């Protein structure tokens, strides 16, 4: 008898609002369209020029020759900018009812009251709500939308914007540079510890459109932050595109934890880019749950530039029917005594495909580096696919590097053992799947992340048997 693990119940994410927008840019990608976005956003000249340069780079770069087939993506069918009928507000009361109701259903305002220090909410291409607790403002923490940051903190933004993820990183990084809109900017001053997480939520409602939010976080020396990112969209018949960009700067002795619960709809191509530059003795932790999207190509990256810097990646992917989740992690050790720990898991079922793709590079100038990678894949039926494609590039001798991976189904012996302790077969299997996901789920901010409660605890645990 097969274990029955239901697909993630998407009802709570699949509700659609009418496609009411103030302005929707025409489909396609031309210099005129990019200039139009720039006008709509009232960009300063440098940003307009940057966008046009990015478009040139985009046109020069090729599509990836590896990974999932994304040939169905036709930029002529995608509207890259959709302005909702509202402006940025710091009070939910001022957010239009249909949009507020969306975020209510997703539990964001409630979570803000109980367990978050600040919230940003983006609807299509614009941030519609942003707010942060007063005491953090007093400590000099900045948490705002990217457009405000470009206007009010131009020097900081110029110094960091698309420097961590350069335009020529890949084709969709360049696309992002050309059409980016929305996203969050966080600046944590030296020594400030933000004990309660900030959360940004990205919702794409408009069909045949794209979301290209830019998240820029700078955690100054000896400061710390936990940032949570959530995303979802209703399902449409045609392709939607998400090509966001996350740039994280973790300065010396600082700490940043970046948690993501991604649950895009199954018509979404999620071609996102996330990178962190980590300073001396600083630590960057990634926690990632990837549940949605038709195709996902997502490989967060830590660049360990400071001596003694550390990074940890903890991630889980769950691919159901029709999904191809090509996820993983990249780390470059660029300084002595750096360390990385990777713990990646995937579950594939009902014809879904999970691929773990990664890079560990220990460069010549990283003596004393340590890296430990573990990935495990669980297949729940015989029509699914699970691949592991890790690249390990070791360029010096004074290292400790190990990588291990396992692939397989639920062990019959383990089921037998649990059944001998009094559990039914279904309960035993459910417990094994929960146990498989536990090392990841315990790292996720369960008490804060509304998404996590719903996706792991409710859907995964409750739906087996």
């Amino acid at each position: 008898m097969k274990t029955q693990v239901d697909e993630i119940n998407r009802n709570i994410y699949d509700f659609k609002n009418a496609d009411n927008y103030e302005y929707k840019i025409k489909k396609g990608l031309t210099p005129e369209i990019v200039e139009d976005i720039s006008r709509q956003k009232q960009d300063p000249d440098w940003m307009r020029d940057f966008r046009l340069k990015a478009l040139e780079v985009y046109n020069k770069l090729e599509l990836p020759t590896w990974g999932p087939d994304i040939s169905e993506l036709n930029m002529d069918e995608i509207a890259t900018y959709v302005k909702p009928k509202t402006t940025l507000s710091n009070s939910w009361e001022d957010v239009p009812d249909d949009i507020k109701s969306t975020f209510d259903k997703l539990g964001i305002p409630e979570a803000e009251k109980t367990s978050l220090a600040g919230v940003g909410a983006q609807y299509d291409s614009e941030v519609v709500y942003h707010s942060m607790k007063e005491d953090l403002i007093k400590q000099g923490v900045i948490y705002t939308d990217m457009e405000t940051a470009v206007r009010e903190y131009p020097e900081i933004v110029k110094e960091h914007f698309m420097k961590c993820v350069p335009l020529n990183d890949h084709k969709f990084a360049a696309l992002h540079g050309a059409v980016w809109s929305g996203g969050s900017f966080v600046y944590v001053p030296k020594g400030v510890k933000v004990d309660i997480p900030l959360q940004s939520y990205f919702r794409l409602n408009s069909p045949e459109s794209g979301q290209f939010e830019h998240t820029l976080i700078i955690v100054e020396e000896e400061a710390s932050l936990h940032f949570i990112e959530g995303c979802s969209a209703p399902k449409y018949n045609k392709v939607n595109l998400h090509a966001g960009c996350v740039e994280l700067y973790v300065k010396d002795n600082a700490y940043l934890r970046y948690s993501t619960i991604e649950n895009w709809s199954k018509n979404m191509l999620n071609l996102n880019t996330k990178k962190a530059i980590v300073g001396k003795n600083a630590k960057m932790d990634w926690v990632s749950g990837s549940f949605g999207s038709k195709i996902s190509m997502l490989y967060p990256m830590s660049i360990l530039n400071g001596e003694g810097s550390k990074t940890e990646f903890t991630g889980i992917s769950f691919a159901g029917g029709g999904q191809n989740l090509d996820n993983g992690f990249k780390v470059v050790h660029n300084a002595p005594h750096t360390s990385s720990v990777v713990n990646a898991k995937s579950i594939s079922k009902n014809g879904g495909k999970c691929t773990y793709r990664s890079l560990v590079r220990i460069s010549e100038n990283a003596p004393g580096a340590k890296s430990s990678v573990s990935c495990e894949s669980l297949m729940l039926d015989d029509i699914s696919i699970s691949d592991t494609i890790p690249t390990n590039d070791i360029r010096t001798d004074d290292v400790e590097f190990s990588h291990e991976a396992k692939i397989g189904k639920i062990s019959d012996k383990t089921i037998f053992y649990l059944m001998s302790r009094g559990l039914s077969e279904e309960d035993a299997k459910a417990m094994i799947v929960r146990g498989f996901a536990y090392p990841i789920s315990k790292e996720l901010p369960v008490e804060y992340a509304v998404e996590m409660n719903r996706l792991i605890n409710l859907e995964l645990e409750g739906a087996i048997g």
Partner: protein
Amino acid sequence: MEINETPVRTARNFNINNINLENVNLPDNITEYTDIWISNSDTKVKFSNFTSPIVLTYGLGDSLTNLVKEMSNNRLKIEINSKTNKEIFIDYNFSNNKTLLEDIEITANEGTKEAVIIKYSSNSSVFHDGIIRINAKINSYLNVIVVNLLNEASNNFLSIQNNIEENANVKFTIIDFGGQSSVTNYYSNMTGDFAQNNVNTIYLGSGSQILDLNYIAELRGKKNNIKIDVQGALTENAKKHFKGTIDFKKGCKKSTGDENESCMLLSNTAKGISLPMLLCSEEDVEGNHSSSAGKIDEKELFYIMTRGFSLKDAMKLMVKAKFNKILETIPNEELKECILNEIDVRLG
């Protein structure tokens, strides 16, 4: 020349999908290869020069495959017709010839058992491009040992392709020491139920040697078993790419696959890149891989040196100890000694 493509590509800037070799000149003036010595007088083994047309699923790439197809100067067909106790030893020693383009086809017929040793050695720079095809029929057992002791300025290219039928067992040992560039493509097509394949490899790189090993196993039958164990050491500016793919095809129920690669880095300018892939389209399987890299344990090194060994000799001893698990399975004491001597010579 871009050769030795992986069966599945990954990001281009990971620099592992293939190897791009510059300054390799393909030979055009080929003469008959005469520096070959074959020991086996067993009448149950049939030798001929009439190999079947070459069709490779992977191989190193068209340029090198076509070179053998069109210009081979040594073709050898070996048909094993019953269990024998005497190994076949094929020695290519390059005393006079500088180029070998060989096509070896070995068929182990049903229920047979045999060991085949193929050794390449040279004292000067030579060019070797070879294809070894194995057909392991039902219930056969074949132990193949390939030893590359070519001069360090040589070019060594080798494509191996196995077809392993029901309950057949192919054991491959590859000793890969020689060549400025040494590029190997190893492919096992495990078609029969209960097919087994063990691959044990030792590589040693020094100077500016480049080694590129691309091992692919496709498991198609039920209860197939593949084990890949690759142990290596790199010194000076040597560079190694190891690409290992275990591909569980749909239907290979109850199959298992294990892949282990370990690289000992003996200098801070040596480089090891690895891509141990597991591809899985079948639920009821077990696949594992592990990969590790690092320098020699200093405490162990210190201990050996306290027993009177110099640093260099202590390192050699540890390399040999690491390789010993694989070396001791070679059924020819003279060859084993020869390999141990080569380790001493090549580590200087």
